């Protein structure tokens, strides 16, 4: 049975694992954005935290993903269920690009715009919501895009600790020494990363301001 027939025959399983993978990526990205963007905003308001927060996120990113999974395994509530663990690790991994880009995006707002806004009596909150965030949105989206592509990749490793997703095909295929099974995981995963990158790039372009 060649690879296409194999894909066709096992489409239900491929579909199921793809959805599992999407779910892992989706929840993690949602969490990463909910935590990362506010942290990035915090850094623009309280520069004193820069070293701690950016440093922390950088350290997490430097730890190899499999090692990070390993570190979290003994954790009391997290280690009990592989999906909790995977989502936690994936979220932590996605934080750095999002925090950095939020910070940079807001900082890049033209100083004249900021001065005019403050001078005309905008509160800090109004400035953030009406000026800084909309203008930084394109750059933040770049961070989200980078984080998403990373997350799709690291999520394949999550199967090693039992969280499922397309990585499961890859590991099973390795154990079975069956290329078709490996590809059944590798190809959709690669496609997912490419599509995410493509669509988010297009979105980014919409929000570019001079």
């Amino acid at each position, binding site marked *: 049975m060649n690879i296409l027939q194999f894909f066709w025959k096992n489409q239900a399983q491929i579909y199921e694992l793809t959805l*599992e993978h*999407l779910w892992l990526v989706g929840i993690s990205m949602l969490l990463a954005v909910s935590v990362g963007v506010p942290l990035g905003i915090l850094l623009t308001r309280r520069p004193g935290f820069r070293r701690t927060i950016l440093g922390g996120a950088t350290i997490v990113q430097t730890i190899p993903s499999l090692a990070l999974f390993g570190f979290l395994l003994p954790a009391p509530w997290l280690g009990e269920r*592989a*999906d909790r663990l995977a989502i936690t690790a994936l979220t932590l991994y996605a934080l750095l690009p999002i925090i950095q880009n939020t910070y940079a995006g807001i900082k890049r707002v033209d100083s004249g715009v900021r001065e005019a806004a403050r001078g005309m009596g905008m509160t800090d909150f109004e400035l953030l919501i009406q000026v800084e965030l909309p203008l930084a949105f394109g750059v933040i989206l770049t961070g989200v895009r980078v984080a998403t592509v990373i997350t799709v990749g690291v999520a394949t490793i999550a199967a*090693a600790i*039992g*969280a499922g997703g397309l990585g499961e095909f890859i*590991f*099973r295929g390795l154990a079975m020494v069956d290329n078709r099974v490996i590809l059944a995981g590798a190809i959709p995963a690669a496609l997912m990363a490419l599509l995410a990158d493509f669509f988010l790039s297009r*979105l980014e372009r919409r929000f570019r301001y001079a």
Partner: protein
Amino acid sequence: MVFLRALFVFLCAAILAGCGGVRENRIVIGSKNFTEQVVLGELLAQHIEATTHLPVDRRFYLAGTYICHQAILAGRIDLYVEYAGTALTAILKQPATSNPQEVYERVKREYARRFHLVVLEPLGFNNTFAIVIRGEDARRLHLKTISDAARHAPEWRAGFGYEFMERPDGYQGLVRTYGLTFAAPPRIMDLGLLYRALIQKQVDLVAGNSTDGLIAARDLAVLEDDRHYFPPYYAVPIVREETLARHPAVRTALEELAGRISDQDMRQMNYAVEGEHRDVQEVVREFLQSKHLD
């Protein structure tokens, strides 16, 4: 804007779909990544297909005990075959005991309470450590148990694998329990080479697994563990409560298999797949037919 909305809907659908995992009427069977597990998985699959006519999805070669456990907890698989001793020590993290009944009861109780998983009746064989000697020696010296062999141990050389030497329930305990002394310190070698060394008379006694295929294929004898040193590793099917609730026929099908697979049966199937390189599905079908289980 339309584009953004489409993206949003897509993301929502993906997240919801992941949450639900609507499986309709399929049963998903998992297995670990070695031959015996794949054979057992296939066996359960074929039997369930034949008796309940439910479609079965096979997810074999999952990387290990932990992966299978996580998968069944998350509902990604409906059932797989575990070993009672492994369930007790590796998953429930309790100390091993050697009473098989006690182990089984405890595992069954805890699995139901903590994980809502049902542990069904053992399939019959016990995949534990086996002390193996050459068949001719067993017959010549009338050796049936390890205690019997202990008398001849000082004349013999033993061979063990790395893991057996390291494990607390391995070499150290064995020697202590049976008062074994060998002619020389045991040779430590790769598992794959143990049986060959035994057959070629480089060693006289090895520790393998009781369901190793080679034991059936070559003239080798397994010594009985009369002092019950090795913990029991009886194979039991583990199923999600929900699956049984939704498909009671599965329970019936699995109960039919209780006690039907002996150590020797398992060895023969293992050898057929590993040693003779036969197709797993064929081997299983043959077995089911021979036991009138199809």
